[in-house]
């Protein structure tokens, strides 16, 4: 039977694309499985991981079960060793044609954002980019809105549907939009890395996981690019997403950027954290893009987020407002960052930053 | 009357603003502090066709109109008055007289290189004994047996001198009798930097526009070919005066830009600075001061643009240029001085650009005809003798 993306009843199950690079599965895959598990439970359906690669390690595949996958489709083929749009799209579309999942989640990595739209276009279905929240159940969605929106939830009508409700920031984070794809399947979504929490690993579910080896149909002539090399950047990139403490700098350092970044590093060191930055600082070339926090950078939710000389443009807030404690230092007392801050100091970061570092060092020394 | 800019002029203004904001403004403080000629900016302007904005394409110009050039000087001067005067002196005082008075050969030889920015231009009239009084010129040009001109003398306060390749020089070519009185006969010449016997002398240290290269020019038996005379022999004075009329529109645009730039900076600052628990922009003094300054600057702008339109339409514009320069220059000086006052102590420091703008503004009341000279031109035109 021909594949028809509008025959919604024919589709069942939640899928997660588990991206691997160099044979190592990215953390985003675990995050998405953990989230996908909840969606699958709400729907009462299977959760499946999809793993593409060459010489795939079965232990790795099996481990996906530890994060909730009932089943893992393993697509093993020499031409799937490294990512190419052509090969990965073909294999995934073949798989969707055959097994017809109703939901397909992909991490919004540089590769996921290349692959997702191409697959959605070939399948003729909708794709919602860079989601930060997913719901099936309307009541759960309403509970989510109560804490994250200005909507008067109890006096608003919501269409009761089991469609996937995909929430994402729009217009640089100024608005949030919840998107549905009611008439086409699968309902596809790319999800921002770091947004979903990884569930604890479960040995039992891992043991139960069923591996399905897929007969991959792929030849050289399917691929129209020639991957010459993959190079890791020499500089070790900062792990913003995994950090417990992030000390970020903004435009306020422009008077003396070198010293400003130094101050942030000193404070980050004493707190055991890493240095982040606003878009303005990254765009000015003062610090690498891997440090960027915000709508177009990384989403972080550390225990402590320190904003030094950051005015708090909404793009920036979008990437850090869910931090547990936010400490803001800014010369301008009316800067919007203070509206998001748990604690605020109105002052010059060049003066306050070092004093804060000193005070924390003193406190820690006294406790030790 | 139609005060609307054309679509192209609107686009040009946008382009100038983007360029000024991203390329010129970041260097302005450094150019001032280091008294450094912004050579890299000139190269970038050249790439965008800004060194020959209103000259026809056949001579390498960009084919826009005169007002489009005026807006370029204005927008550059908003963020860096040095850059404004480099552009103005090159265009108004060097390209323009070659275009107006040059032979076809001279235009073909010089304009494409000047308009492309490969060459920079300058103009030399002022001498130690001849500023406002052009009859005080001492530099001489004498024809030798080969038909070449031999120049001797010196010029001072020449904008762009250290970096220019082509100079328009006014020199004495004889003595004539006019109404029974002996008078110097002045003529204009094109001198190239590489000409034998030509050299650039002392570099002036200035109060403002400190990045512009203002130097002395020295001619010691400087020999130039016979075909380098610009325009007719003995017409040098008229040509110089007409050139300066155009130059005044350029300087008026520079002054206008300085005033507008100062107002922009001050509006931004007063909206940030909090005193007595509120932003100083909420004080009526700030509001009224800025309202006055803005209104006066807009008035100056209309004079500048109207003079530019007259020049563009080949109408007599000398008096209009004088009025535009007088009003714009005095507005720039007054506005920047008041802006420093609104900034308070910070305005007096070099952490903010406003003190630089105040220093830069002053020169616009002095060069290319002092404000007193403009008053002479205007009073003469309205018959007050």
């Amino acid at each position, binding site marked *: 039977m021909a594949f028809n993306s509008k025959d919604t009843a024919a589709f069942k199950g939640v899928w997660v694309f588990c991206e691997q690079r160099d044979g190592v599965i990215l953390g985003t895959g675990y995050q998405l499985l953990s989230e996908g598990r909840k969606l699958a439970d709400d729907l009462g359906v299977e959760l499946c991981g999809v793993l593409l690669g060459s010489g795939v390690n079965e232990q790795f595949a099996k481990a996906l079960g530890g994060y909730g996958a009932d089943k893992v489709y393993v697509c093993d083929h020499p031409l799937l060793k490294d990512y190419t*749009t052509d090969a990965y799209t073909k294999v995934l579309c073949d798989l969707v044609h055959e097994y017809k999942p109703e939901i397909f989640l992909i991490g919004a990595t*540089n*590769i996921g*954002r*290349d692959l997702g*739209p191409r697959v*959605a*276009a070939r399948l003729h*279905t*909708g*794709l*919602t*980019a*860079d989601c930060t929240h997913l719901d099936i159940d309307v009541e759960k969605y309403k509970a989510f809105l109560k804490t*994250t*929106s*200005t909507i008067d939830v109890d006096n608003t009508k*919501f269409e009761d549907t089991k469609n996937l409700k995909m929430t994402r*920031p*729009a*217009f*640089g*984070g*100024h*608005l*949030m*939009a*919840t*998107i549905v794809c009611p008439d086409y399947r699968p309902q596809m979504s790319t999800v921002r890395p770091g947004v979903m929490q990884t569930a604890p690993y479960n040995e039992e579910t891992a043991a139960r996981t069923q591996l399905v080896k897929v007969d991959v149909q792929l030849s050289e002539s399917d691929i*129209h*690019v*020639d991957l*010459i090399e993959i*190079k890791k*950047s020499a500089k070790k990139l900062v792990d913003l997403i995994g950090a417990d403490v992030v000390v970020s700098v903004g435009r306020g350092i422009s008077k003396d950027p070198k010293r400003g970044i130094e101050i942030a590093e000193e404070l980050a060191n004493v707190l055991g954290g890493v240095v982040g930055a606003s878009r303005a600082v990254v765009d000015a070339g003062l610090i690498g893009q891997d440090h960027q926090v915000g709508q177009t950078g990384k989403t972080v939710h550390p225990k*402590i987020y320190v904003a030094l000389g950051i005015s708090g*443009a909404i793009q920036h807030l979008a990437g850090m407002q869910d931090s*547990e*404690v936010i400490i803001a230092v800014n010369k301008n007392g009316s800067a919007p960052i*203070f*509206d*998001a*801050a*748990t*604690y605020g*100091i*109105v*002052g010059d970061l060049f003066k*306050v930053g070092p*004093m804060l570092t000193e005070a924390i060092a003193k*406190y820690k020394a006294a*406790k030790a | 009357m139609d005060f609307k800019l054309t*679509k*192209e002029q609107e*686009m040009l203004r946008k*382009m100038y603003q*983007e360029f000024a904001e991203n390329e010129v403004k970041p260097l302005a403080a450094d150019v001032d502090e280091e008294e450094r000629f912004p050579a890299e900016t000139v190269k970038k302007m050249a790439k965008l*066709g800004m060194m020959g904005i209103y000259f026809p394409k056949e001579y390498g110009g*960009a084919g*826009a109109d005169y007002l489009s050039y005026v807006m370029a000087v204005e927008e550059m001067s908003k963020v860096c008055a040095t850059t404004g005067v480099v552009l103005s002196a090159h265009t108004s005082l060097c390209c323009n007289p070659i275009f107006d008075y040059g032979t076809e050969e001279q235009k073909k030889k010089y304009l494409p290189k000047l308009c492309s920015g490969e060459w920079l231009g300058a103009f030399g009239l002022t001498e130690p004994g001849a500023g406002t009084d052009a009859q005080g010129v001492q530099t001489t040009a004498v024809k030798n047996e080969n038909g070449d001109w031999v120049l001797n003398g010196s010029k001072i306060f020449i904008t762009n001198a250290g970096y220019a390749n082509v100079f328009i020089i006014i020199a004495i070519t004889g003595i004539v009798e006019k109404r029974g009185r002996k008078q110097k006969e002045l003529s204009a010449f094109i001198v190239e930097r590489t000409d034998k016997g030509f050299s650039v002398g002392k570099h002036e240290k200035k109060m403002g526009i400190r990045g512009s290269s203002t130097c002395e020019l020295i001619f010691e038996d400087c020999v130039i070919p016979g075909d380098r005379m610009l325009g007719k022999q003995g017409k040098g004075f008229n040509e110089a005066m007409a050139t300066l009329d155009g130059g005044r529109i350029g300087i008026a645009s520079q002054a206008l830009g300085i005033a507008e730039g100062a107002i922009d900076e001050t509006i931004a600052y007063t909206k940030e600075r909090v005193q007595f628990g509120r932003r100083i922009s909420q004080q009526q003094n700030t509001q009224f001061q800025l309202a006055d300054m803005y209104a006066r600057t807009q008035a100056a702008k209309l004079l500048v643009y109207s003079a530019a339109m007259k020049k563009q339409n080949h109408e007599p514009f000398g008096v209009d240029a004088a009025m535009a320069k007088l009003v714009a220059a005095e507005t720039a000086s007054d506005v920047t001085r008041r802006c420093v006052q609104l900034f308070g102590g910070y305005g007096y420091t070099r952490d903010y650009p406003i003190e630089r703008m105040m220093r830069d503004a002053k020169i616009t009341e002095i060069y290319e005809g002092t404000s007193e000279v403009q008053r002479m031109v205007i009073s003469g035109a309205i018959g007050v003798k």
Partner: protein
Amino acid sequence: MKIIVCVKQVPDTSGVVAVKEDGTMDRAAMATISNPDDMNALEAALQIKETNPDVKVVLVSMGPPPTESMLRECLARGADEAYLVSAREFGGADTWATSSTLTAAIEKIGVGEGDIVMCGRQAIDGDTAQVGPQIAEKLGLPQVTYVTAIDYKDGKLTVRRALEDGYMTIAVETPCVLTCIKELNNPRYMSVSGIMECYSKPYTVWDFEALKESKWISAVENVGLKGSPTQVYKSFSPPVKGKGTMMEGADKAACEQLVSILGEKHII
């Protein structure tokens, strides 16, 4: 050879953002700019044109009639001609419908041997990064996204594609679709003569009628809001958080007080 560059006029979300009472963006009240990544795509095309004078740079955009101002600016930067796809029927499109309409326009312009289609990675009003790859799929062309370097010699195209932690070097067949990011280049300014010429360069507006024969359109149900698989279920503004604790002063004592609060609450 030609390079087709897809460009979009977007509200400037970095400035003041106007939101209407119903929670949607008030586009009319906002300044518009050329989408930044698209300008990197245009610059890349113009650089290829500089070393390959036979290259023609063709712009295509979908949007309301005022999009003309952006297209004129792109022409003033050096592009050769522009097509604006503009009709009420195309409004409200998601990325599927947008890519269908743009594909119809690009096919009508014609993608020939050796041609390249260039897009920005994503537009700042949606940040989806989907339209480029979806155009590639519909045109049946290979794609490379996140392009940070382009080497084009004798018709051979080798590009560098950014990964989060490095890059890939990829040789790609032409015709193909590339999506570009800001690391690729610094977009040039308009030039004075470019501005003087931009209104006399070829400029074409295509409405629904002009494109409806395309297999990607064929009926009004396949474009705009109606042709979009995704729909907005709800849109909302994030709440304003309550103000936190502001410390008194900005001196050593204030810092020490803050640290002791953090300590008491076991935050540090």
